[in-house]
């Protein structure tokens, strides 16, 4: 077969063939049964050789590795805490006041250095922990973890919101401490939302099984187990817990600037937007702030979101630079 026909068949396969060339090809194929066989064979070869390729399976992990590397080199955001110094940062105070014994009894040990990642408003980041688990940390959030995990447990301290993809290690449970609530897993992926300013902690499971323990002094510990697409909400003021079914996919998708609100107050929604995009949003009227709406945004530009919220609550807003005010 002449090279010309190979070229035409290839162009036909890629759908880049011109009308004129298609006619030539069709005439050639029709002129001889052998040509039809050759045509079929070449198509099969072009098709089969595409299947040489496998789909990459680690794209997310690869990106997390790259982000971790980038963050390593951005000094202002990352600080190291030599534990022996007992620097009175807010997160350390929380640990001590809860009386977690293994911290009280720990001797000054230069080996046990901690790393703290702080995300200001408007900045999300992701990184890899010493055990290769991956963390996606939301804006306005902090995560503290040791440079080397203890042999019997992997403990991290979170203030804010993060999505964890924890590597499975049977003898070494992974524990996320958020105030009085600790979440324990062996190897799963889940979202923890625990902003100190809010009086609610929410743990949502994407894969695997997660145990959540709520322990207050002088009260017995309360433990709940969560399966995928289940969420536990704990009111940190009253200690009341609430378990419900929810789409984990939607809850964990803040990493892609997707926000889903089920019957949330305008105040709650504007607080989330403020934090994610580093804005200043005021809702002066308490009645307006309390109006509840259900809506979702997926990579929506800020102006569009504000317009939608105004429409849903029957209100208006003014915007100048990064300051927004909602009013009736």
């Amino acid at each position, binding site marked *: 077969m002449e090279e010309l026909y190979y070229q035409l068949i290839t162009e036909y396969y890629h759908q880049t063939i011109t009308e004129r060339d298609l006619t030539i090809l069709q005439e050639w194929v029709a002129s001889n049964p052998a040509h039809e066989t050759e045509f079929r064979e070449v198509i099969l*070869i072009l098709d089969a050789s595409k299947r*040489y390729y496998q789909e990459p*399976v680690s794209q997310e992990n690869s990106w997390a590795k790259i982000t971790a590397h980038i963050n390593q080199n951005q000094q202002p955001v990352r600080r190291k805490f030599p534990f022996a110094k007992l620097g009175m940062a807010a997160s350390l105070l929380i640990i001590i006041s809860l009386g977690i014994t293994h911290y009280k009894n720990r001797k000054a040990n230069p080996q046990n250095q901690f790393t703290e990642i702080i995300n200001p408003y408007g900045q999300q980041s992701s990184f890899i922990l010493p055990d290769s688990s991956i963390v996606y940390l939301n804006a306005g959030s902090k995560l503290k973890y040791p440079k080397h995990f203890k042999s019997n447990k992997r403990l991290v301290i979170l203030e804010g919101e993060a999505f964890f993809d924890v590597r499975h290690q049977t003898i070494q449970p992974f524990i996320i401490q958020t105030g009085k609530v600790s979440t324990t897993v062996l190897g799963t992926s889940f979202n923890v939302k625990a902003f100190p300013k809010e009086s609610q902690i929410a743990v949502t499971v994407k894969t695997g099984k997660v145990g959540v323990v709520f322990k207050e002094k002088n009260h017995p510990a309360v433990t709940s187990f969560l399966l995928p697409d289940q969420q536990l909400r704990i009111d940190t003021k009253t200690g009341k817990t609430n378990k419900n079914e929810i789409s984990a996919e939607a809850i964990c998708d803040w990493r892609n600037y997707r926000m889903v609100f089920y019957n949330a107050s305008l105040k709650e929604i504007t607080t989330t937007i403020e934090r994610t995009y580093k804005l200043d949003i005021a809702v002066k009227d308490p009645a307006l702030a309390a109006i509840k709406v259900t809506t979702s945004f997926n990579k929506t530009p800020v102006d569009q979101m504000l317009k939608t919220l105004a429409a849903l609550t029957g209100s208006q807003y003014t915007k100048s630079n990064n300051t927004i005010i909602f009013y009736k």
Partner: protein
Amino acid sequence: MKPHNYNVFSDEELLALLHQDDTLSLQTIFSRYYTPLTQFSTIFTKDITASEVLISDLFIKLWDNRKQLEIRLLKPYLFQSAKNLSLNHLKKNKPLLEPLENHETLLSEHLTPFEILTNRESQQRILSLINLLPERQREVLLMSRIEQIDKTNIAPLLGITVRTVETTLYQAIKSLRTLLSTSGEKI
């Protein structure tokens, strides 16, 4: 990290942003090219796990050197780097022989039951024969299967002219047809 739609930016616009320390542009380049670069790398390494690691390193290097590098065109730079990294990797590690079983599972994942009945054996045979082709023919054939690169990209990667790419592709297909018919199976 304000979400604009960076996907509308051209490669060269993303390069300019990268030069200004914009991590979102790196992420966009990553999403755009991670899969084709990884697959391209497996032409040499024959090991997708190794290739995924190599390509991650490529992006780390790209970020680290974003100010020093004078890249005119992004795509040729990325694929050329991928080739260099892959060949270096081969110098240190022996390439894995692809067991035929891999292709079987691959086929059953992608084909409908009808296609499996009629084409499976032929496709499996073709895949195993590709590895018997002369190296240059094999490379050209496989590279031409990656959507993001065409013969004008393949030519400089292999140090040959576009015309030679065309004739080599023709030879590769001809060789496979010959191999198929001499191996006895009618397809």
